[in-house]
């Protein structure tokens, strides 16, 4: 049968279901340690254990449902992912240490590289513009307790 030939197990779908199963098992195990209490007076672990068990059951069901799924391996764009990680980490690292303006500048400048063929001059202008806007609106306008620069 022609459909028979396509019936191969989908490792990606099964992997996703397995992750949820492990997550559920972890919640149930860790939650049990918090103390499930009694049925009249439930403890802090009762809800996590219930959720964990439910998650494990659903994960098994989804594993069955999607075992022959035709979903393809997710195509994670490396350049875009890398650039976005770099941009956000730069913002996180700089915002409290160097100040809002350098952090914003770095985030915008770096994230522009997600698309190939970026014009550096335009990137500098955009980054400076957004950084200025950030200072104007969030520090001058709304008085958020952030410093614009490190001094």
């Amino acid at each position, binding site marked *: 049968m022609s459909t028979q030939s396509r019936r191969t197990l989908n490792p990606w779908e099964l992997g996703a279901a397995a992750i949820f199963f492990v997550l559920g098992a972890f919640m149930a195990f860790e939650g049990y340690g918090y103390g499930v209490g009694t049925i*009249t007076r439930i403890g802090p672990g009762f809800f996590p254990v219930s959720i964990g068990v439910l998650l494990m059951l659903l994960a098994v069901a989804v594993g069955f449902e999607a075992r022959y799924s035709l979903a393809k391996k997710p195509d994670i764009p490396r350049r875009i992912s890398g650039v976005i990680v770099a941009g956000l980490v730069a913002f996180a690292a700089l915002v409290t240490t160097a100040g809002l303006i350098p952090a*914003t500048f770095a985030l*915008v400048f770096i994230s522009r590289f997600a698309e190939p063929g970026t014009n550096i001059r335009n990137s500098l202008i955009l980054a400076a513009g957004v950084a200025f806007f950030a200072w104007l609106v969030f520090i001058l306008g709304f008085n958020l307790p952030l410093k614009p620069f490190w001094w």
Partner: protein
Amino acid sequence: MDLFTNIALGFERALSLDALLFCFFGVTIGTFVGVLPGVGAMAAVALCLPITFYMDPTVALIMLAGIFYGAQYGSSTASILLNVPGTVTSAVTCLDGYPMAQQGKAGVALFMVTITSFIGGSIAIVLMMLFTPAVAAFALKFSSAEYFMIMALGLITAATIAPGSPLKSLIMVVVGLALGTVGTDSASGAMRFTFGILELSDGVSLVAIAMGLFGVAEIISSIGRDSGTPIDAKHVTFKSMLPSKAELKASVMPTLRGTGIGALIGALPGAGATVATFMAYAAEKKVAKDPSRFGKGAIEGVVAPEAANNSAVQAAFMPTLSLGIPGDALMAFLLGAMMIHGIVPGPRFLVDQPVMFWGLVASFWIGNVFLLILNIPLIGVWVRILTIPYKVLYPTMLFFICIGVFAINFQVFDVIAVLFFGFMGFIMIKFGYPPAPILLGFVLGPMMEEHFGRALLMSRGSFSIFWERPISAVLLVITLVMLILSAKSVIQHVRSGTRKVEEASLEL
């Protein structure tokens, strides 16, 4: 009359200068983000949330709500001119809106969409004014058992009504519930799943989850995608916007039907505006004399879903405000935002905060009038916004996401969390796991746990409390029916184990 005094009270608050000003800001920002594809209302609310901490809570709420319904007006612009929905709730509008624009009737489509949006929104507001107090009065009788059941019903409806696999949606609900348990347990004070990280003791940041799943994930998948060229804005003159008599006549009934469907779906806990638009479109196709016109620029196919999404968004405030049960991810987020402000939506909200509630409802109507003014004479401005290139837009968006997340608690940890949820959302969507139920589960989870514990305490540990109390029993039955209804397709899929590519992934 009690109702009229309340409405007068509301308008008095909503017509004060600060409320008017921020209502205007809200709807303008809403239209702006609505017009831009790939920028959702949620990102705009997240951005404005830290700013609203310094405002009067009523004004803050008026502004945040304005962003939501403002985005509904703007979102159809991109659908019609670009064939790319501004937000998901306008995805259906593309089907007939874009063909209309290709036939040179973009102006008419934009005009009619604004008018029907206004009508849909206004009718839903009136319904909301009439029914919310009744629903809230009824809900005052609820005990913890009923609250637990109605939340369970809301979550299960949201999971089973959504497109795609109900099992995967349910998993996402449970993941949301799981995320909700992180932090200090409110009943015992125990630290749960914090792994010694101090920043987690207050729980995971709602804004980080929302901005990761809906902001960063969207940006990752949109970069490098061809955004299309909008149909020339010069064609959209005021004169070209005026519809013919036949077009007006053809739109009356679809608008009313769309409004009705929208109001009904919007008012249900667990069902949101997106579902309403699909149903309104399907209904129009069914009643039409010649269904083959649909997809080729039928005006009914444009006005009905747009009336439906506006009426649904307004009606969705009904369960959110009177029961504290959000209909979709957007409402869940707004509910979370209200709780950050220290406002707890629910039946007591109407009794304890009449000025806030009625002021908010009155502002809806004022906001809709603003939107009418903003959208008809100024349509040219919004059309021009579509020409902003994405490579300018997405770095700016990333900045707004970062500052919005960071400014809530001034925690660097939250910026890293947004990154984590961004990649999680991106990968999940590829495998057909919808992100919206996570947010619903996350917001409702802690409340469910509290009510569950209280219900069992009340019944001295007997689960029968959930079916012995009449209202709770009815809710339980509806929940079971929802589950049974979706069981058939689930069992079928579990047996065959196969899903087609287009079913397996939720990518648009």
